């Protein structure tokens, strides 16, 4: 059977400055990050012949043709899975370059400034939120923190997972952000700081919730064959997959509230890459909320369902631990670039370019995405 193992590589990464607000438009930010990624790959923008924009961003392939003057765009696609979109886009891009449909696929994601009040109305308009919008928003369930709080509470009640275990994830991300000059949040955080932060949607406190950010990030995906001639050592995509949960459009009706789509995708990605969990040197795990990291660790099989709280204890996921996670600070402390920043960070870790926060000897890593109401994606990459 044809499989994507080592057929494609990430050859360029780029981003803008990350901040809470930006004077620049979402399109301008997206183009700036894209140009940085293309230059990083050692390409001219006119060599880009495939584009996957962020499905929820309102930016389309035509915007790239217009601004870069692309002469021959042969492949464009969308992977509308919320925060699972960027890693799912790696799968789509890998298919396109592995089959020769395109040579260099740009995957780009930008977020402009957005005021808090507009988030709920924007969500209500999204087609994948149709059922939530009709049956739950009128009752006061209007935002992701509220959607996911029901999943987290169920996990706590079934398995004894604690607020402090969520805090361990927040503190870990912050420790990493302190070492990352690009991160928005660099003030050290203690577990007490986490526990004292105000309640948002119980069980989530403020420090369980990701940042609001303006900025953009982008990567270039090239066939493994062509990647050899480009500027950097290629970072190969060993295994990649997406997965969707049962009842994807309404968490309320999902048979198991504590099982995400990544539970279906992870075995495919690990088998494709032919690696085991113990082989993973570094993991950039989508962290819109602390609980979402813990649940993905279980769903990927790093530990059994319900054992995530114990798994992350004793420094295992901290810098220097057995499985360092979110080495850039994640969405919780670097910036919320919908996980495109997680892909960029994994590539830099595998290139060995991360300076003070570099994971020693990082050769194999994974990156995940989580989005909408539980969609999942995973890529295992290596140098």
């Amino acid at each position, binding site marked *: 059977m044809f499989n994507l193992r080592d057929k494609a590589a990430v050859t360029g990464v780029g981003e803008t400055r990350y901040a809470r607000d930006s004077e620049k438009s979402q399109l301008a930010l997206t183009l700036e990050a894209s140009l940085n990624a293309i230059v990083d790959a050692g390409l001219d923008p006119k060599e880009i012949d495939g584009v996957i924009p962020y499905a929820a961003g309102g930016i389309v392939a035509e915007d790239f043709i217009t601004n870069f003057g692309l002469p021959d765009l042969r492949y464009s696609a969308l992977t509308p899975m919320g925060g699972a979109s960027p890693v799912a886009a790696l799968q789509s891009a890998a298919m396109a370059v592995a089959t020769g449909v395109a040579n260099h696929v740009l995957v780009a994601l930008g977020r402009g400034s957005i005021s*808090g*009040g507009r*988030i*709920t109305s924007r969500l*209500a308009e999204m087609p994948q939120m149709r*059922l939530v*919008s*009709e*049956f*739950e*928003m*009128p*009752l*006061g*369930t*209007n*935002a992701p*923190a*509220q959607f996911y*709080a*029901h*999943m987290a*509470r*169920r996990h706590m*009640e*079934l398995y004894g997972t604690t607020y402090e275990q969520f805090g361990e994830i927040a503190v870990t991300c912050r420790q990493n952000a302190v070492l990352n000059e690009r991160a928005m949040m660099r003030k050290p955080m203690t577990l007490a700081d986490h526990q004292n932060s*105000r*309640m*948002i*949607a*119980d*069980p989530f406190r403020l420090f369980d919730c990701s940042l609001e950010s303006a900025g953009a990030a982008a990567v270039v995906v090239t066939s493994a064959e062509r990647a050899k001639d480009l500027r950097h050592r290629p970072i190969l995509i060993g295994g990649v997959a997406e997965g969707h949960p049962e009842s994807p459009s*309404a968490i*309320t*009706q999902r048979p198991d*509230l504590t099982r995400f789509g990544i539970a279906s995708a992870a075995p495919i990605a690990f088998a494709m890459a032919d690696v085991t969990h113990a082989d993973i040197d570094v993991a950039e795990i989508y962290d819109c909320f602390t609980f979402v990291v813990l649940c993905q660790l279980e769903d990927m099989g790093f530990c059994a369902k319900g054992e995530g709280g114990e798994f992350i204890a004793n420094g295992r996921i901290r810098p220097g631990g057995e499985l360092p996670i979110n080495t850039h600070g994640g969405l919780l402390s670097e910036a919320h670039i919908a996980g495109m920043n997680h892909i960029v960070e994994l590539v830099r870790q595998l290139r060995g370019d991360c300076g003070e926060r570099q994971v020693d000897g990082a050769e194999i890593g994974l990156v995940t995405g989580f989005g909408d109401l539980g969609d999942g994606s995973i890529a295992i990459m290596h140098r």
Partner: protein
Amino acid sequence: MTDSYDQLPEKPRPQPSTENQPYWDGLREHRLLVQRCANCNKLRHYPRPMCDACYAMDYTWQEIDGRGTVHSWATSHHPFHHSFKREVPYVTVTADLESGVRLQAPLVGSDETALALGLRVIVDYADVDASLSLPCLRLES
């Protein structure tokens, strides 16, 4: 905070379609109606066009019992939609109804400290105005 309580926006309202209008009509009469597949009798909620068991698109509306048990809950402290500013903190409960479907609705009559998985709850109804009633859940005494 510049919003005064007098200026809160309207709460989001359902936009009933032909597919789900009977559900909303039922709530107005304080009855809980869900779709029943006309071919294989499977109940489904939320309302949608097709039965995922047999792909039939014909269905009837069946009134179900409002009793069930607590499956999970969340307590909102931040009003993500500003129209809920007066209500925070408020609890929403996900309940397993005895008919097999789930319902999410605000908890009335108790606070979150009274909750645990499996506790018995029963659906009640809150009349918003002449054209809209919403479900709520209370602990069965």
